[in-house]
């Protein structure tokens, strides 16, 4: 490796440590401000509307689609053993435990996480964050805290909706499309899906909401100068959030399998 290559590799490693350190400080700052008044309920509700209510159509469509696709795939597999009646139960279990929180988080990263990073990044480069600071209003308190709280509220609510709509998709394909017995479909769903499946999925969604909102606002806050930098921050925010969702999902699934199920 040439000297230049060694130097850039060293810079990359040092840069990663610097980013990790800055993220830790940002996280501590967010946690500090979450519990301090004033609690801006109007801003919180506006963010819940933006992240939660306005995201419902896209979550609904993707959940129904996933439920339908999954039911189709299962039908061909379970048909080999004449157990198509289990389609509802299989879709219900996978949606509640895994797919609903995961799809919700990924869709919301794309829709709202990117918007959070771009909004705060633009405010950074146009000195709006500095303007807030000079007025002794902390931008983390005013801008970030409502987004984090709204995400922790909205991600689980949308996940709950995704559970129901995923099963609805499976119902459409299984019962209406393939002619599976309706009462059998619901009977197996009721038999196999436990409240624990639903709770663990909801807890996962809340953790994803916290991670995504903190990561995306962090990258917005650390935007360098210029419009190009806003684009770079948004990309970093989306990619890092998605990677953290995978890692957090694996860790939580492992923990829940050992502790809950």
């Amino acid at each position: 490796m040439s000297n230049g290559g060694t130097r850039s590799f060293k810079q990359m490693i040092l840069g990663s440590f610097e980013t990790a350190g800055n993220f830790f400080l940002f996280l501590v700052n967010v946690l500090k401000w979450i519990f301090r008044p004033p609690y801006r309920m109007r801003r919180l509700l506006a963010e819940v509307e933006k992240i939660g209510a306005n995201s419902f159509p896209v979550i609904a469509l993707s959940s129904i689609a996933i439920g339908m696709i999954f039911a189709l795939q299962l039908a061909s597999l379970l048909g080999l053993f004449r157990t198509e009646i289990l389609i509802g139960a299989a879709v219900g279990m996978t949606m509640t435990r895994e797919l609903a929180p995961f799809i919700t988080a990924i869709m919301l990263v794309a829709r709202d996480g990117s918007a959070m990073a771009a909004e705060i990044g633009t405010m950074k480069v146009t000195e709006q964050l500095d303007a807030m600071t000079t007025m002794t209003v902390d931008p983390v308190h005013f801008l970030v805290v409502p987004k984090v709280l709204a995400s922790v509220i909205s991600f689980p609510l949308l996940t709950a909706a995704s559970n129901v709509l995923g099963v609805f998709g499976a119902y459409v394909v299984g019962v209406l499309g393939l002619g599976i017995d309706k009462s059998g479909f619901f009977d197996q769903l009721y038999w196999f899906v436990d409240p624990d499946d639903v709770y663990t999925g909801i807890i996962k969604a809340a953790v994803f909401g916290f991670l995504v909102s903190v990561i995306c606002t962090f990258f917005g806050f650390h935007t360098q100068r210029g419009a190009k930098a806003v684009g770079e921050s948004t990309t970093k925010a989306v990619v890092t959030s998605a990677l953290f969702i995978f890692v957090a999902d694996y860790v939580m699934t492992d923990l829940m399998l050992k502790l809950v199920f």
Partner: protein
Amino acid sequence: MKNGYIVEVKKLSKSFGDNQVLNDVSIGFVDGEISVVIGKSGTGKSVLIKNIIGILKPDAGDILYNGKSIYALDTQEYTQYRQSFGYLFQESALFDSMNVFDNIAFPLVEVKKIKDKRYIERFVNEKLEWVGLPGTGKLYPAELSGGMKKRAALARALAISPQILLFDEPTTGLDPVLSESIDELILRVNNELGLTCIVISHDIPATFRIAHKIALLHDTRIQFHGTPREAVAADVPMLKKFITNSFVSVDEVGD
């Protein structure tokens, strides 16, 4: 307040990595005066102002407010100190997700914690009228021209009821006529409201129109600090260059 300084910077140094921006900078700003800090782009004028207002922390040195070090203030006193400043940013820095009314109401609601909606409405409309923008409360920053943005930002800066107003290159990007109207606004702020004004600029004609005191920041230090009359007579090469390059007589332009 010894020697009439409301804010005094003492031996302040600031660097970013290996780049030393300010080195042993000392300067005092007299209460009720307009002080203009001039210097080439990138010489650290904005860094000086950001240190004064507390956005940046100096590596060394002290800042005195009414004769008392701001680093010796407790949290509440330090917050009060910071609230005694209004800051007009170079690009105005209006919150683009809020309309003009909400921008000006922001310090009233978030800093002064005022909840009386009628008072806020009356206050905002008065400020808009004072800066020459009556009836623009419902417009968003994107719908305003450069000069209107500066005026709206000034109204927002005044809403916090500051003692000192900081102007970061207030006339940059404006045509000469608009620039002059902003200069007049700075003079009005000083004359009618009695506020101390610290202006960062490289607009020399504007500087001579409004300044009680001029300071030149060059090569990380304050090279000159005095009245406009003293500035003209001073034997400081960079200052001479600034002044001679900025004033062109009609004779020199020719036909």
